[in-house]
């Protein structure tokens, strides 16, 4: 139960933080013309929402396998967080633009945190359920 509540809240907070990074904390470039980083920010809102929903779902499942699956899917989603600015939608081209000096490093950091937390939890659930089965 502790794991369910703790990690559910953790995932929801990380998802919320991901939405806040390109919109509030390190906002992408402001311009009348919609630049690449504008679309990256919108896509990150989408990824953040998915992580929040997965975090919400996490609390409702007792089954260790399902919770491990949810954690793994959050880890896979975290790859998208950096792929969007670096490969898929892109950012402004000048290296001193706000989206490059603020948003991108923040997205890299949150990716590392989300991937570490979700993969760590995935491995933990697998190991603890295996040892329970052995008992």
């Amino acid at each position, binding site marked *: 139960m502790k794991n369910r509540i703790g990690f559910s809240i953790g995932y929801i907070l990380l998802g919320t933080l991901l939405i806040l990074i390109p919109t509030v904390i390190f906002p992408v470039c402001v311009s009348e013309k919609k630049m690449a980083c504008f679309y990256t920010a919108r896509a990150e809102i989408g990824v953040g929402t998915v992580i929040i929903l997965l975090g919400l779902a996490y609390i409702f499942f007792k089954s260790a396998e399902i919770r491990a699956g949810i954690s793994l899917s959050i880890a896979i989603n975290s790859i998208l967080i950096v792929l969007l600015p670096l490969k898929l939608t892109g950012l402004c081209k000048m*290296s001193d633009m706000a989206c490059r000096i603020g948003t991108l490093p923040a997205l890299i950091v949150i990716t590392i945190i989300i991937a570490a937390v979700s993969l760590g939890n995935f491995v933990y659930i697998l190991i603890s359920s295996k040892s329970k089965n052995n008992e």
Partner: protein
Amino acid sequence: MNDLNVFKRAKRNIKQVYLLITPVVLLSMVLFASFVIDLSLKQGVSNLEKRIGSDYILVPKGAKNDAEDIILEGARGIFYFDRSVYDEVKNVEGVKEATEQFFLKSMAADCCSSEVEIIFYNPETDFLIHPWISSEYKKAQDKNCVVTGSFVNVEDNGNIKIFGREYKVAAKMAKTGTSLDSSIYFTFDSLDTVLADASEKGSFITDEQQNGDLISSVFINIEEGYEEGDVLNRIKTSVSTDYDLVFSKELSRQFSDNLSNIYEVLHIINIFAIMFFVAIDFCVNCIVVNSQKTEIALYRIMGIDKKSIIKILFEDALLTSILGGTGGCLLSALFTVPFGDYIGNMLEMPYLGPDFLRVTLFIVLVTLLTVVIGILGSLYPIIVVCVLDPYTALRKEGE
């Protein structure tokens, strides 16, 4: 005896490990961050000094403040005087080298949406730009080529579009952490074309800019062995146009002096952080050793000698210091290294982050420092073990 393994003990006393490791993590975070910021500022300022690259700069009368802003803050400005100033200066006795530049009002290039500083220079006399070139694509720069700063984006085909016209990028400069990073350099051969394109694209170009043979500044270096005052006097008598003199070396020295206050603050933070966390580490060690007294007493009664118990405590201190030190450095690196450009931007100062090798070196250094502090902190528990009478300790526990 297997139970005395340092990792098994750590697993058993996990709460105490957290308690011991937290101050170490915090200390290494503070130390690592301050080392990185300190080095980045020093590298940035050193690059600024090298970037100025000349002893004096001649600028039009009244443009001294603008010129200083350009050098220190990368602010944009337009000021011009006649090219004859350069011709008059270069032949003055005692002038080792002189080169002229023309600044164009900063424009948002078509390639991107941010402002870039457009500068025209003379590659034959230049001694300011070429030392910074990191990757050269083309040996000679003609009128269809540019040299770009490290922040300026080059298209995949190696071209850059400015005022609607494509130019080949002849070379890219190394990252300096200064305004040089977002500049584009043309030779004087391109001046007419660029001005015509800028005018066509709606930029305001004055008649003076369009028609005159103008330059914005003359950078000079004084020949060694000559008295600077004498050379400046000779320049004064030789140049017929009114001008202001920017003492560039002195300017960078002043800037460097101003930064020394920041370094002092960082050093004070380091000293206080070390003192504060050593005190906390000592207190935590006291709490932990008091709660471990029974365990230690039991070990002693079981026949384990003092030397072995001191070794156990020493291993505990080493484990928490290495784990805490490395973990703290990695956590701090997660924020200070990727956000280097952001920190530089916030501080509005030249800032050049450390490379991978230096980051690794800092991690090793800070971890070593935390190990020393951790061992110092474990001295109290070791003293307690030396004077501990196991039977008295157990009796007190029983009471």
